[in-house]
């Protein structure tokens, strides 16, 4: 059955008319039109679809979009300001944390949630914080370097 509701994505309100069974991922990509959030497995296994709901990481492929109404959704598009990359984005590029880039938005959203909650995250904390995000390319070392560096520099460092 079709439902009408409002989703707030990156502080912008969108009127959605969509089947109640649609996942948050499919509505963000298909209705809102933001395609930075990726679909890897569509099964809660890979983390490519990670977005923040009220600041906390959520696998958007396995979360009903209707259930996110009234909550603040943040996607990868919400991090950069204009053309200036967010410090996590910049560090991922500079530390070799990006190859094909498919896992990158999800990695960054998980890392953001972790460092926001725990600015003093250790390497062990970071490994566990990113445990729900898979990368087929990098071998994770560049990703770890990028997030460790961001923890040191601070999440809100200007790019």
């Amino acid at each position, binding site marked *: 059955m079709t439902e009408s509701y409002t989703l707030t994505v990156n502080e912008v309100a969108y009127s959605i008319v969509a*089947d109640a*069974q649609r996942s948050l991922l499919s509505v963000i990509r298909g209705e809102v039109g933001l395609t930075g959030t990726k679909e890897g497995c569509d099964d809660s296994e890979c*983390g490519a679809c990670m977005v923040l709901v009220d600041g906390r*990481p959520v696998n958007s492929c*396995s979360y009903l979009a209707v*259930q996110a109404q009234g909550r603040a959704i943040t996607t990868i598009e919400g991090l950069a300001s204009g053309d200036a990359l967010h410090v996590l984005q910049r560090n991922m590029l500079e530390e070799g944390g990006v190859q094909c880039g498919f896992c990158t938005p999800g990695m960054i959203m998980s890392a953001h949630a972790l460092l926001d909650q725990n600015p003093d995250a250790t390497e062990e904390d970071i490994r566990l914080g990113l445990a*729900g995000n898979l990368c087929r390319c990098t071998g994770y070392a560049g990703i770890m370097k990028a997030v460790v560096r961001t923890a040191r520099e601070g999440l809100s460092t200007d790019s």
Partner: protein
Amino acid sequence: MTFTLASSLEEALDAVAAGATPIAGGTDLVVAARGGRTPLPESLVAIDRIPGLDTVTTHEGGLRLGATVSHATIASHPDIVRYFAGLADGSALVGSPATRNVGTIGGNVMNASPAMDTGAPLVVLGASVELASVAGTRVVTVDDLWTAPGVTSASSDELCTAVLLPAQPENSASAYVRLEYRRAMEIAVVGAATRVVLDGDGAVTSVDLALTAVAPTILRVTALDVAGSSIAAAADAAREAASMQATPISDIRASDSYRRHTVGIMAGRAVEAAAGRAAGEQISVPVNRAFGIGAPA
């Protein structure tokens, strides 16, 4: 599909009375529907916005966990970590940070998987669930709740509103250890929870033991009489009783004989960890890390 976002318990109870299926985090329900495996029910009522249902409060000397309390909250709540550590051990192992943020205790308990990680700890802690319907509220022990894989003794018009943790005996502590092949995004191969009560001299007064993923439901081990024995002897007895009483299956994750063997190992370790905690040793949550279980990250 019809969808109701309940803003009060009354609204949710009316919806389930009218045939709707409750959804909390959806990490079981929605994930089961991915790829068209188990279609979502025709009518859903979301219970994650009901005020007060996500709070931890004191209750008759113990704690009352609202049904939508998340695994993330359980794993880090100071009173749960301190007095009900075995439950925190279980919740801390669930999925990934995202799964723990979204997944709830009510969903875990009502999904009734024999591999659920809060199940064995709740059994040894003597927990009950509060079930509410438009007709009223009743309390059932978790032992009486799970009847078969995925099946509970609750009726379809009942909501779980809380999990009740009773006050624990003096000189006691709990622990939950699970065998996992990796440290995240894993399902228990087998698991064991214990609550150990010590006497004043460091000998064992009693051991409660429950097992994960070795029977159609969480299995409470019976006739474990270890009063007066040393911790080492109690761990041996737990190891033997767990392997004897388990009735595991073989599947892609492990054979029945491997499960039977390893559930004993987990039971012995759980006794050692719970006894250590009861004696005042600081063993952080989840205790799996102290044993180095799962491949290093």
